[in-house]
């Protein structure tokens, strides 16, 4: 099974060879590194940009306006905060010129904690991203969705932000969740598409891309990652596997949680949320971003406004602590973001809540 980073790389390969992607660029995105997480290794159109995030976003906009199809990367989302004005422009151009131009670009960036990244490699971007109208925003929780969301992002005529959950990038797909066309043998896949580490091998090595089929995960569609009847957990990215693990543990105690993997943060799948809440009457939102003015608060506000009388317990948010950063020491990181234990406790409390 492919890892998420391999899946993204294969999607970009399909993008550049069949879907018109012209430029995959950002800091250290081209040779020799192929990206901080190797997501852009061995791609024909990948190149290294100057160390200038404003230039990266600006040039992506310009390329898009000129009919190219850029996929740009901000090396860590922690370093995108000097470009918010440009991201806003990418998002408002079509609207501001009343439809004269559109801005079809993809921006991808690794997000979240889980790799002991300390203050500046642990940021989340979901709350910030959802505050920028005109963008579509996706965040996969597994390799197959990563592949399918990236292809959808590439063919979309709008700016699409692809948030890469850092902690999941090297995690393999679950059995059965193979990309269409991916070889059966993981070792073979690695041999085919991962640059060898040793310089000697590297010199004569060339990638051999598998014959991949297109697979599109529609933007705006959530996925029920685990059906359940007692509590709805609305989450995405890194928290999906944690929520699944927590739910599996709770199943033994008779608590049956439904895990909704949002996949698209904007536009998001309100129908899926509503349907689930109407069934379970209890809802927990989980994400890692700081908890004041958090995207989960939007979801919960809407749930509360529209489904007030469906609720048997206070809707609950489990999110990052509202502190200025995520500390390096394990105890600090764990105290700052959701963990499986915290998710489990929150689901359990909601399930046991007596109205």
């Amino acid at each position, binding site marked *: 099974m492919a890892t998420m980073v391999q899946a993204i790389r294969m999607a970009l390969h399909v993008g550049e060879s069949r879907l018109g992607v012209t430029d995959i660029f950002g800091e250290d995105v081209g040779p020799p590194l192929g990206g901080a997480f190797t997501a852009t290794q061995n791609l024909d159109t990948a190149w290294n940009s100057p160390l*200038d995030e404003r230039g990266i976003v600006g040039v992506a906009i310009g390329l898009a306006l000129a009919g*190219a199809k850029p996929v740009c990367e901000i090396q860590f989302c922690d370093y995108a905060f000097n470009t918010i004005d440009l991201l806003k422009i990418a998002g408002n151009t079509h609207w*501001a010129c009343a439809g004269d131009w559109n801005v079809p670009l993809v921006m991808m960036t690794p997000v979240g904690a889980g790799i002991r990244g300390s203050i500046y490699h642990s940021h989340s971007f979901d709350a910030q991203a959802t505050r920028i109208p005109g963008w579509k925003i996706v965040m996969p929780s597994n390799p197959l969705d990563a592949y399918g969301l990236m292809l959808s992002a590439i063919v979309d005529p709008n700016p699409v932000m692809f948030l890469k959950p850092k902690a999941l990038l090297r995690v393999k797909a679950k059995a059965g969740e193979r990309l269409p066309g991916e070889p059966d043998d993981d070792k073979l896949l690695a041999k085919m598409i991962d640059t060898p580490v040793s310089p000697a091998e590297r010199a004569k090595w060339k990638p051999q891309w598998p014959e991949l089929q297109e697979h599109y995960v529609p933007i705006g569609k959530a996925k029920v990652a685990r059906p359940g009847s007692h509590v709805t957990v609305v989450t995405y990215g890194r928290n999906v596997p944690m929520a699944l693990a927590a739910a599996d543990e709770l199943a033994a105690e008779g608590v049956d949680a439904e895990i909704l993997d949002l996949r698209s943060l904007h536009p998001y799948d309100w129908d899926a949320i509503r349907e689930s809440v109407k069934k379970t009457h209890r809802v927990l939102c989980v994400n890692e971003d700081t908890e004041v003015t958090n995207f989960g608060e939007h979801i919960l506000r809407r749930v509360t406004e529209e489904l007030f009388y469906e609720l048997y317990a206070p809707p609950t948010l489990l999110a990052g602590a509202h502190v200025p950063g995520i500390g390096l020491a394990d105890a600090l990181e764990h105290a700052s973001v959701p963990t499986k234990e915290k998710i489990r406790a929150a689901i359990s409390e909601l399930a046991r809540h007596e109205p």
Partner: protein
Amino acid sequence: MTIGASTVKKQGPDARELAPELCVRLHDLMLRARLLEERLITMYRQGDGYFWIGGPGEEAFSVPLGLLVDKGQGIHHDYLHLHYRASGTLLALGADPVDSMRQMKNTATDPYSRGRNFASHYTARKWNVAPVSSPIEVQYSIAPGTAMAQRKPGCKGITVVTGGDAGTAEGDFATCLVWSSRKGSELPILIIVTNNQYGISTPYAGQHGEARISDRGKPFGMETATIDGNDVETAYHGVKRAIDYVRTERKPYLLEVMVSRLYGHSSASGANFVKDEDDCLARFERRLEERKILTRAVMDEQRAKITQEFLEASKRVREEPQPEPHQIWEHVFATKNLVGGEA
């Protein structure tokens, strides 16, 4: 001819006199551009619009720019990333002045923004005019992108970006210089700064350590020049030389154009005529008389005619419909890839 000499080119008669027919065309467009701005200011004064900003005083530069670019759609034509003083360029490209009034009056018929954006916030995909947006200097970070798309072998299209002097303090100006001049990846981009010596109320002096803004291109090995943008002949030649260089060499060029700001910054600062700045139109008209290309009487008549035409147009615009509340929801997302060729 010295390319890139960082000196203000001398005005006055020289061997580079423009042909009479071109002079007449330039004059007509400059006059129209000026009268359009004056009409917009009057509309603002009369309550037919909430805010005016524009380019009176830059016509000797902005009109030649519009005439000299290769107008069209797509990478084989020139891209324009302009700021909010570009009416002269748009008119020279062929824009309808009435559309500027529609934007001023924020009507539903305003083709540039359907009543959403301020005056002078142009856009014209059919002519590669990227949308003008209010934030200062962001166009300098975006423009290298269209220029990069024009690095294709055989492509003759170039990218032109303009902005003001004060705005060069933003990091985006440096971004433009850095991305345009990377060794081996030089971009076909004409980087223009219109220096009117002001940022709103803040004079140039005291904010700049550079003797000339165009000097900032030098460390990057760029061709640079500073020209007198109040003299239409100088400006025409200066812009042409720069465009030709970029088109042929496929390399960046930094051009500083000294211009006037004849009605102050915007309606926020009163939009009154400033007497002590050089008026490029008056200067050109004196020259046209000297060269006996047009007489005062002919020019007066022309002015009266256009003034009347614009007055009437503005009255008609006043009657056009305003946007409806529900229209805020239109064009949030594109459903077609217009820039990708979908129609």
